[in-house]
């Protein structure tokens, strides 16, 4: 089973990856740090998962070679879990990418990373409600301190596909 870490550049995917796998790949406060993919392994409930740190992407139609790498990885794996990493202070654009991936029928879960930054900006996000609306696990994380990573791990088995038709109805009727 593969877990793909996807998200915009500089949202902390590599930091989450390092936390999940104990690896040492470069994290920089810099968009475009990771331009190739890195694989690692982690065990959840005795099951082995292959975790892949994917280069940052803005959307699912690639604009450059690094984004192409990202989409190739997505296409290559059979039925992966896509862990969409979102910068909590820029939640809308993160959700945009998450929607695109959900529309493609992948199993999805969401990490609201940089939760500490959101708190600093007095930004409050109703995680439970967001989870309820989207129907996928949503976990606030602070990848640099490790906060929320264990919850993230616990929720991996519950990552799920989303029926877009139903989602649309649900949102429209809010």
């Amino acid at each position: 089973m593969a877990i793909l870490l996807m998200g915009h550049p500089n949202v902390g995917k590599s930091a989450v990856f390092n936390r999940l796998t104990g690896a040492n790949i470069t994290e920089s406060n810099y968009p475009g740090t990771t331009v190739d993919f890195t694989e690692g392994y982690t065990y959840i409930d005795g099951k082995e998962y292959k975790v892949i740190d994917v280069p940052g992407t803005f959307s699912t139609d690639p604009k450059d070679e690094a984004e192409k790498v990202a989409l190739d990885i997505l296409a290559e794996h059979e039925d992966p879990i896509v862990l969409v990493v979102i910068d909590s202070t820029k939640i809308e654009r993160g959700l945009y990418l998450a929607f695109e991936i959900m529309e493609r029928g992948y199993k999805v879960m969401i990490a609201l990373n940089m939760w500490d930054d959101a708190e600093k900006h007095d930004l409050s996000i109703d995680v439970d409600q967001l989870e309820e609306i989207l129907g996928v696990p949503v976990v606030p994380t602070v990848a640099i301190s490790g906060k929320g990573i264990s919850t993230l791990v616990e929720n991996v088995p519950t990552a799920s596909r989303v029926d877009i038709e139903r989602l649309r109805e649900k949102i429209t009727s809010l």
Partner: protein
Amino acid sequence: MKLDPEERWRLIDRVARETVEYGAERSTIGSVLAELTVKPLTGIPFAFAVLYGFWGFFDAFAGFFTDGFFVPLFDDHWLPWIQEAFPLKGSWLYYVLVGDPEAVNSFEALGMLTSGFFVAIGVVLPAIVAFYLVITILEDSGYMPRLAVLVDTVLHKIGLHGFAVVPMILSLGCNVPGVASTRTLETKKQRFMIMILLSVFIPCGAQLGVMLSLIPEYFGYIMIYLVTGFFVFGWVLNKLLPGRSPEIITDVPPLRTPTIANVSRKLWVKVKGFFTNAIPFVLLGVGLVNLLYLGGVISWIANSLEPLFTGWFGIPKETVAPLIAGFLRKDLAVAQLSAIDMSGFQLITSVVIISIYFPCIATFSMIIKEGRKSGGVIRVLGGGLLTLVTVVFLWGGLLHLIGILLGVT
């Protein structure tokens, strides 16, 4: 099922309004500070202060280790000991491994175990530790992309558009990731241009470090000449090559306090990489040059290229040996150059030539790898070599001309 973008945004807007509550948007000292660093009027003086800090830190740190500890350690203890202890004095093996039995400093001994170790451990290691420490702090604090934006703003003011400043800054660490990061550029033209310009004109961290510790008095001139070359040839290539080079928009991340954990981890990865990747190449470089000397190859090349070297570039023919070592490691090449007897201007010229004449092997293989994705290896290499030869002759020759005009040759 797929949504169209407009509907997607509409739904997301709805979700966000339902679940996200924005605090009052107020500016803090931190956020204003972040803006001040990219505005030219305030940002440029600050950038100069940062560069001075970089330089000063380097000077103090590398000087402390190299001059304070490694020079006496190698010159007073290691060198005399190995010169005596190594058997087979007079044999070719002694020459390759230990070098000159009479040498009194580790620079001029020229053996793998003497000069090789000294350059690798005594000079390059402190240099790259100092260098990467500062780079990592600048990276993690978020200042690097700000510097990039600032440079970009200034470049726009003087009419240079679409330069990829981020790969450029990455290249200052090492050309290999610099070349790899050209992947984030949109068009083939841009990727080709930046890839070639980076690998030709931008010296890597190890080379910068060695230049700063061995020839600090010439560092500024060399860098100005190289960076000017970057932009001059960038401008020319941009005019000559077909294709588009669209604006490059960098998302500027917030300023953050770098964490000790992340900085030390990154530094550790770099240092480990240095021990496994760089040291063998430095030793190999020294050994290779020694073998070529023994085989008479170096003097043959030096004599046949002498007209070109002394006539066109104005540098002594002895610089051939460092040039050969430079294929493996540019830092080693600079160290070897600094041991050759020549005038200051010749030293500047030869370091410039070392920088531009050919990328090191590691960068070269990365260009081949990336070239596959940027219009084919043949095209990239062909175009690259053509550019390279032109650059070396024109830019190297021009420097000689400048020297003649200034009357310093």
